[in-house]
């Protein structure tokens, strides 16, 4: 057994602690003078022995416990695991070593470049490996060449390392890793295909000899081959394989290689390869629980294999190798070597893990991943941290703000240029210089004249000459010129269309050119927003329309009136298909009035916000200013200070607004104002509030629109929670949501990066099975320890419990 952290085994000394404690306890144990034990000396002797036994067992358990914990911390790896192999002749596992030789590895730290250190470390690592299985070394900054080269001796690997130099990466790492996995999988599938091919040939030996004879006849060039093959039936015996028979019959006349060529031509004509393809797709698409490639990729690869005729090509290569051999043993060796099933089992990465080249990288879940980080300090490097394509930009008429956060990850000050491209055209360019660890946000106004989605790219050019995900960021904007709003309102709805328009415009920050309000349905089929304050008085067609809009994900804003009957609201909500998440009751007494309340307790899918509870204690300057601005904007009136004060005073009378958002597009709210009467102030306040919460609702809606993975949204707020997900869990979560792992959202990429970083502390991924086993043993020991140290008579305990109940 090997250990990842053998130094931690020093901790085994801790196992002495229970021993010392026991001795100490024995030394200072208090003896009780009790002569009456003479009465049952024999039983005491028995008890004495049992307690001694118990103490010894306890001691043993405790020592074991400490040792196991130490072992588990030292991360044990059995030889087998270290070799990541099943020791079968026909199977081989490939170790893929990814060596980062991008320019950032040229950073000199402690008199050596990171790259030199990586090479040294890699050499040491390879010397330690009990190497029998093939290794693939891939340099990330060198152009890849396929098929991959399998190195099967240490000398070859060390030799190979001599020719690796620093360069610039042309392909993103994630893409490269995916391609590598695919190549290795391709090798595995090819070997399997050849194996199947040979199996078939052996099983239907006679059939193949006939086929070969027919082919030879057709060929007619070499009559000698024809005569030999026609006699092959006599040569062949049950104990010999097809190739052995072929070899025995032809080698005397030096015709083995010619025969093999004939075989190749025969195979080309036969349908055997198609059969092999079918068998392969059956075997390799369903059985493997954790394949190196995702199922789609696997199917794609199999199709590619079929289309490009790789099996036949490989067969040709193989018979070329076989034809060179003059000894049947050697021929069989070549065959065995080619048909070995080689699958990827471990990846070791040597890199500085600077910035985020590794962001969004997808390592197959079934392989062991070892990340080795080189260097603690960074060279001077700029990178795009985040491009904030504010969702507001979507409806912006004149374009929207694009915020680009740039950070200097390095240890020296650096400068670079940010370029913004929209539809392939350079729109903006800005110089930026940053101190080490400094982060800056640069804002651009992006304008597009299209009425469609426009795609853009942020590019950062700096001293680093290598492909880097940090230096590129894609974004898209969508310009929509006309907005149709269906407003189903009471006649006495106190809000003017203009003020609602203002709310929408201010929420979207840029003015929309054309907002059109519809008060009746029938004009158009699809609206961009639906706002209603007469839920209880909706007509059937209206309900149907709203429901279809809800289903399509179009935002629907429902304002509940205080005078509405709760049961009627409920029934109409049910008709709208909202009953699952929303419960409306009139129950809360707010300032001696019954208030319509949207219950937040019924359903977890129902996000609930108490938007606004205002009382006397809310008296801060900021709030005042914001209200002043709001008032001015809505009414387009400049109030004098006294007027403001009186308005604010009125507004600070108790006010309750609550809202709930179900799924993404339904926004439901209810407002309560104490002492609402017909005076000017309150009449002013009601539309104000409605506008205010309408804006809030819009904002929330937009925020929801921005979330790609709603389940993960909660976790975003707590990074630690997100980190708690394992890669597999996240993967399955994504798959459940119908997203492929490559379309990771920005935050998830960040997560993945941080996960990679946390992995850096370990030389290797933990050995799950062994650790689980140890953990179970530890729990068991703990349980036993409990039993031994606190003997409970189960019977008595049960009795007690029963009598108590």
């Amino acid at each position, binding site marked *: 057994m090997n250990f990842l952290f053998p130094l931690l085994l020093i901790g085994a000394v801790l196992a002495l602690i229970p021993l010392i404690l026991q001795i100490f306890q024995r030394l200072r*144990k*208090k*003896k*009780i*003078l*009790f*002569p*009456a*034990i*003479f*009465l*049952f*000396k024999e*039983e*005491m*002797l028995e*008890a*004495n022995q*049992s*307690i*001694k036994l118990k103490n010894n067992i306890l001691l043993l358990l405790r020592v074991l416990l400490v040792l196991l914990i130490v072992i588990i911390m030292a991360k044990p790896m059995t030889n087998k695991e270290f070799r990541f192999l099943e020791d079968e002749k026909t199977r081989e596992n490939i170790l893929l070593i990814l060596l980062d030789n991008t320019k950032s590895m040229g950073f000199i730290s402690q008199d050596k470049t990171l790259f030199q250190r990586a090479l040294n470390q890699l050499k040491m690592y390879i010397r330690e490996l009990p190497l029998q299985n093939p290794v693939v070394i891939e340099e990330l900054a060198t152009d890849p060449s396929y098929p991959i080269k399998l190195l099967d001796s240490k000398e070859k690997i060390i030799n190979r390392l001599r020719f690796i130099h620093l360069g610039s990466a042309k392909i993103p790492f994630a893409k490269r890793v995916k391609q590598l996995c695919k190549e290795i999988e391709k090798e595995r599938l090819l070997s399997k295909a050849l194996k199947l091919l040979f199996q078939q040939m052996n099983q239907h030996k006679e059939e193949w000899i006939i086929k070969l004879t027919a082919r030879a006849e057709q060929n007619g060039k070499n009559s000698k081959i024809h005569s030999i093959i026609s006699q092959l039936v006599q040569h062949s015996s049950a104990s010999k394989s097809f190739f052995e028979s072929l070899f025995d019959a032809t080698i005397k006349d030096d015709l083995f290689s010619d025969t093999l060529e004939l075989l190749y031509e025969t195979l080309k004509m036969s349908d055997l390869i198609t059969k092999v393809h079918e068998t392969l797709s059956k075997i390799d698409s369903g059985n493997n629980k954790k394949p190196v490639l995702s199922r789609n990729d696997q199917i794609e690869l199999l199709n590619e294999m079929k289309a490009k005729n790789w099996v036949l090509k490989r067969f040709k290569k193989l018979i070329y190798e076989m034809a060179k051999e003059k000894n049947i043993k050697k021929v069989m060796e070549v065959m065995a070597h080619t048909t070995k099933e080689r699958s990827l089992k471990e990846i070791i990465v040597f890199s500085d893990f600077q910035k985020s080249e590794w962001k969004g990288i997808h390592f197959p879940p079934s392989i062991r991943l070892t990340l080795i980080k080189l260097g603690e300090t960074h060279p001077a490097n700029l990178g795009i941290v985040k491009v904030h394509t504010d969702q507001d930009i979507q409806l912006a008429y004149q374009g929207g703000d694009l915020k680009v956060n740039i950070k200097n990850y390095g240890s020296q000050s650096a400068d670079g240029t940010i370029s913004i491209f929209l539809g392939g055209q350079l729109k903006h360019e800005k110089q930026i210089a940053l101190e080490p660890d400094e982060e800056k946000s640069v804002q651009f106004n992006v304008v597009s004249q299209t009425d469609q989605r426009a795609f853009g790219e942020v590019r950062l050019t700096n001293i680093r000459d290598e492909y880097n995900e940090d230096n590129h960021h894609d974004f898209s904007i969508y310009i929509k010129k006309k907005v149709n709003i269906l407003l189903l309102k009471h006649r006495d709805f106190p809000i003017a269309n203009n003020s609602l328009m203002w709310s929408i415009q201010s929420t979207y920050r840029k003015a929309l050119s054309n907002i059109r309000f519809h008060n009746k349905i029938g004009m158009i089929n699809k609206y961009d927003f639906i706002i209603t304050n007469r839920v209880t008085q909706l007509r059937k067609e209206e309900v149907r329309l709203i429901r279809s809009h809800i289903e399509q994900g179009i935002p629907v804003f429902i304002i509940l009136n205080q005078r509405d009957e709760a049961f009627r609201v409920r029934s109409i909500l049910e008709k709208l298909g909202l009953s699952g998440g929303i419960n409306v009751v009139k129950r809360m007494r707010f300032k001696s009035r019954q208030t319509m309340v949207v219950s937040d307790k019924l359903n977890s899918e129902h996000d609930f916000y108490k938007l606004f509870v205002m009382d006397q204690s809310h008296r801060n300057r900021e709030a005042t200013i914001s209200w002043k601005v709001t008032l001015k904007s809505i009414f387009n009136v400049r109030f004098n200070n006294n007027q403001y004060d009186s308005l604010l005073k009125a507004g600070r009378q108790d006010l309750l607004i609550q809202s709930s958002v179900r799924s993404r597009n339904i926004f439901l709210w209810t407002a309560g104002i104490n002492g609402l009467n017909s005076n000017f102030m309150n009449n002013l306040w009601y539309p104000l509030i409605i506008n205010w919460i309408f804006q809030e609702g819009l904002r929330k809606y937009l925020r929801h629109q921005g979330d790609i993975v709603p389940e993960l949204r909660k976790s975003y707020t707590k990074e630690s929670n997100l980190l708690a997900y394992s890669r597999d869990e996240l993967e399955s979560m994504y798959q459940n949501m119908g997203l492929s792992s490559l379309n990771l959202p920005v935050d998830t990429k960040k997560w993945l990066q941080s996960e990679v970083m946390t992995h850096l502390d370990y030389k290797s991924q933990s050995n799950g099975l062994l650790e689980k086993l140890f953990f179970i043993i530890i729990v068991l020991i703990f349980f036993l320890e409990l039993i031994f140290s606190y*003997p409970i008579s189960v019977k008595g305990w049960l009795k007690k419990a029963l009598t108590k109940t």
Partner: protein
Amino acid sequence: MKTNYLDEHLIAKLSQIPIKPLSLAEGLFKGRHRSKKSGEEVEFKEFRPYIQGDDLKKIDWKRSARQETYFVKEMEDELNYKVHLIIDQSASMDQGGKDEMSKIEYSKYLVAALAYLFVKQGDQVQVSSFSNRFHSIFKSSNNIQKMPLLVESLNHLSTQGVSDFYSLIGKARPLRSDKMILFLLSDLICDPNTLHSCLAKLSSPKVKIILFHLISPDELNFPFKGDVHFLDPESNNTFSCNAGQIKNKFKAHWERFCNDLQFWTQKWDMEYRSFNTQTHYSENLLDFIKSYHLKP
């Protein structure tokens, strides 16, 4: 430091107890009191009404004639009885907790008080101890002046060895002894069979044996919990066990042991008293004396 085992308060209490001569004369505290037994008596005791079965010779005809009912004239003899107080000084008598006296101390106080009581009544009191061997501590005397000597000797008495009840035979009472009272103060930690056979050998019609069984509260309640290490002082062996597990077993054994003792002592006409050492010795002693007084 010397301890005065003669507690002044107890002495004062003991002096106040009015001892009924008649009830005691039956077999216990004889000394100054008169024996009820008839024989070659010399001194007149009392007249009592004739009861069927009385010897006709004893009827005092003169008195009977005067009173017109039959009276019997009772005579009595003045006897001096020997009292022998024996303390068990085996190692097991060291048992005792922080708050309570060890058994040996307890028995020393008891012996001192008893000795004082008897000497004061004019009885011959002898005090001895035993463990492996029998030791005389205080030679037979009825001189109250010698009480300090007894206290001195008690001070020198310490625990040692194993209690061997065989050592008592032949020493505790002389072969041709007079009638005597024998007090045995012990925890009776000994093989029950040995104990029974020794007690059987000690018993005799001429000797009234009173057994004071000293019991510590630990033995009564067995208050231990968890893993404990018990030390047997006589064999010096340590036994570790879980107290909770053996508690019931111990209680059963202990009960049987005490019941056996009561049975055998009753059989051999001995007086058996168990003294909890947690209770103050004066209380126990006074209870004992009072109970004797009240006996019919």
